């Protein structure tokens, strides 16, 4: 399993090592590469900062303030997950043709990534025992002091993992930066691969990107410290009293509405108007076949990911020791592999084997690798929530091994596993660069159709595909946006992976 996860990396290292030293130095340290480094890190850091502000503010509002309209605020602040960053970018460009460059990318990526922070923060806030907040207040702490001294220490770890996700998202984002002309690693790798088929050079740049990602992951691991969510006592009924803010709730709600307008309203308006203006030109057959391809490829990827993740999740949830540690690091490693890098590695690797080159299984495998960490995260979290005593009881009743797994573990973990599946499915539907590089010839998904049209500014043609993609991606997202209804632990664990 670990070996499988490491295949693309090993391949890249091999290709990278085929370059002679002089051109290696040249490639890595020429001005252009330095510029790419700076741009990528700067972009990721600024987006991280903004999405932290947006996401944690929204989470705080949702968790702690009585806002009107029930669960609408949380749905609005998380639903943008369903909109791929390239679709959001395309929507913005089409209403505002001068939309381009670094700050445009900051805006789009902040809009796309803050739902992750919101979701993770809300989930970890909900895990905090509210009696601790009440105890803090009764000991004379102000709301703000409670936030700083009681709540923050307990949500720091999850939040930090959520922010890591944002950073990695920006590192691996391909669609938005390409459309906006911002020269980051991913765009550079793709261009090198396309323009010159310079695979050794692309492999070297990919390795540099992976190193950067690994560095960030290690840094986050260092900084996060230990997770400390402490339940005061089992059996206490948590009556969570939200703050009543009176008229102030309207301006607060406006914050969320403004965000939703920028992240949801703009693309929705653009897509529907373009769609309506252009109804007679829609190629119904290719729309249907692209939808079908998207569903097929993402299902195949999600199923494969779950199949690979299940043994890993069990290993990580149950046992401690060397092997799980190794597995954990190798899964973290897949974190650090952006779609364009996996795409590159698998293209080059599979082109050696004509019978699998550009076939659906390779694409599904790419999806599985890309989203393995998400799958493992949700499986592990849902397994860890099963009380160990249940397995003990089952053993004393004579049921062990696979039978116990089938009759106790699996049914209890099923909701969490399902959430993990949905998460992978959703992300696979939106995936662009690996799909572009690995799809079988003539196999067009919604994502590739959107890309084909938008990259040559044929916005009208892209609209129906984008609309369909958003609608089908909205279904799993909608389920995920209800942490109150669904298995929120598994979901947030899956997300932060």
């Amino acid at each position, binding site marked *: 399993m670990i070996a499988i996860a490491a295949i693309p990396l090993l391949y890249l290292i091999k290709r990278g090592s085929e370059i002679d030293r002089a051109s290696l130095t040249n490639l890595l340290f020429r001005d252009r590469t330095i510029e790419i480094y700076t741009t990528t890190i700067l972009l990721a850091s600024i987006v991280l900062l903004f999405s932290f502000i947006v996401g944690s503010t929204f989470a705080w509002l949702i968790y702690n303030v009585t806002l009107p309209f029930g669960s609408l605020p949380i749905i609005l602040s998380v639903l943008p997950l369903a909109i791929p960053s390239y679709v959001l970018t395309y929507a913005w460009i089409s209403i505002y043709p001068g939309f381009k460059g670094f700050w445009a990318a900051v805006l789009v990526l902040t809009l796309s990534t803050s739902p992750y922070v919101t979701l993770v923060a809300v989930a970890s806030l909900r895990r905090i025992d509210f009696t601790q907040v009440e105890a803090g207040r009764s000991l004379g702490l102000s709301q703000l002091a409670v936030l700083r001294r009681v709540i923050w220490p307990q949500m720091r770890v999850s939040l930090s993992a959520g922010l890591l996700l944002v950073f990695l998202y920006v590192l691996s984002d391909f669609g938005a930066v390409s459309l906006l002309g911002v020269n980051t690693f991913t765009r550079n790798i793709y261009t090198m691969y396309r323009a010159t088929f310079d695979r050794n050079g692309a492999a070297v740049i990919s390795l540099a990107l992976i190193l950067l990602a690994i560095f960030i992951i290690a840094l986050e691991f260092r900084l996060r410290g230990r997770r400390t969510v402490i339940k005061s006592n089992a*059996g206490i009924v948590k009556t969570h009293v939200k703050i009543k803010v009176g008229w102030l709730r309207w301006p607060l709600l406006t914050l969320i509405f403004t965000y939703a307008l920028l992240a949801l309203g703009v693309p929705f308006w653009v897509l529907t108007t373009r769609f309506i203006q252009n109804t007679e030109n829609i190629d119904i057959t290719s729309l249907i076949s692209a939808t079908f391809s998207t569903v097929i490829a993402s299902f195949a990827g999600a199923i494969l990911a779950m199949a690979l993740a299940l043994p890993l999740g069990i290993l990580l949830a149950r046992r401690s020791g060397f092997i799980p540690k190794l597995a954990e690091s190798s899964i973290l490693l897949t974190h650090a592999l952006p779609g364009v890098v996996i795409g590159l590695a698998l293209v080059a690797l599979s082109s050696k084997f004509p019978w699998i080159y550009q076939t659906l299984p390779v694409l599904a495998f790419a999806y599985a690798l890309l989203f393995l960490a998400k799958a493992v995260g949700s499986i592990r979290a849902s397994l860890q929530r099963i*009380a160990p*005593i*249940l397995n*003990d*009881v*089952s*053993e*004393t*009743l*004579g*049921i*062990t091994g696979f039978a116990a797994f089938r*009759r*106790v573990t699996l*049914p*209890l973990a099923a909701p969490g596993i399902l959430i993990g599946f949905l998460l992978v499915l959703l992300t696979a539907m939106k995936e662009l660069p690996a799909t572009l590089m690995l799809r079988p010839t003539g196999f067009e998904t919604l994502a590739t159709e959107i890309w084909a049209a938008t990259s040559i500014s044929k916005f009208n043609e892209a609209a129906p595909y984008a609309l369909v993609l958003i609608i089908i991606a909205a279904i799993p997202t909608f389920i995920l946006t209800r942490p109150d209804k669904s298995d929120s632990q598994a979901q947030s664990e899956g997300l932060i992976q």
Partner: protein
Amino acid sequence: MTSLEVHELTVHFDGRPIVENLSIVVPSGAFAAVLGPSGCGKTTFLRSIAGLITPSSGTIRFGKQLVSISSLVLPPNKRHIGYVPQEGGLFPHLNVAENIGFGVSKNEKIDVVDEMLDLVGLKNLATRKPYQLSGGQQTRVALARALAIKPQIVLLDEPFGALDAALRNELREEVCNLLKERKTTALMVTHDREEALVSADIVALMRHGQILQYGSSRNVYSNPISPEIAVSTGDVLLLKAERDASKSIRFALSQIDLKGEIELGQLVIRPEEIIVSPEPSAASLSAIVTKVDYYGHDAVLQLLLDSWPDEEITARIAGPLGFSVGQKLWVKHAGPIRWFELPHKK
């Protein structure tokens, strides 16, 4: 049913001995209670009998069958024990009937589940999920599930811990009767001294991974082997005492004259062994009430003897309370004299 024999059992956890050289015998069909404070190792002990923890040395026998010798152990699924963990440990995804039938083979399932539902009186709740049950019902289901596999021995880990007082007494009686009727060998661990004394045939007192004393409830209560043990089975009045070569003992309530060399020690007296009366009688001493703790069914009085002002005496009296603070009354001692040497100074 079968007996349980544990011989010199030692269990380590994280390199620390949790259970140390522990031996106990529970005869076939008896109900034994291991009584100890939290952290004394009683759950670890129970789990090693169940086979869920591997001991580092010692043997465990079920009747003639050796199930554990040193760290060679029979796995829990081969032991045929009925394990009732704390708070029941019901499978949350299965209903009552499915929980009960979990360990029963397919062809027996319907009959056994039916029988067990009858036994614990939950026939009408067979299709409920655990979260729809009250705490007492959950305990009943957990017991039924354990009994359904016709276990050799039933192990109960604080089975009534999560229940409120009224339900606790009722369910305890019901469970004990049920286990006794079926002549089930059972071992319960608990930190509640009343629970242990009232329900068990044999009480074992556990401290720091060892069993310090065991025997019938009455025996461990009235013949404690040390003042510490006496405290763990009930309230204790610890009094200074002196005795001479002829073993005559002088203390607060028996102020006789001693002869020759005098040895210092202490006495363990139960508060209910102090007889209190508003009128003087033979050998009674006068005292003043300094404090009254009223419990409803009984009360505890703190008394100061006129003749022995340096130690306060507590007395437990039953029934309607006729005493108040400052009142004068007469006391005498009616019970065994339990002499213990003074603890060695370290």
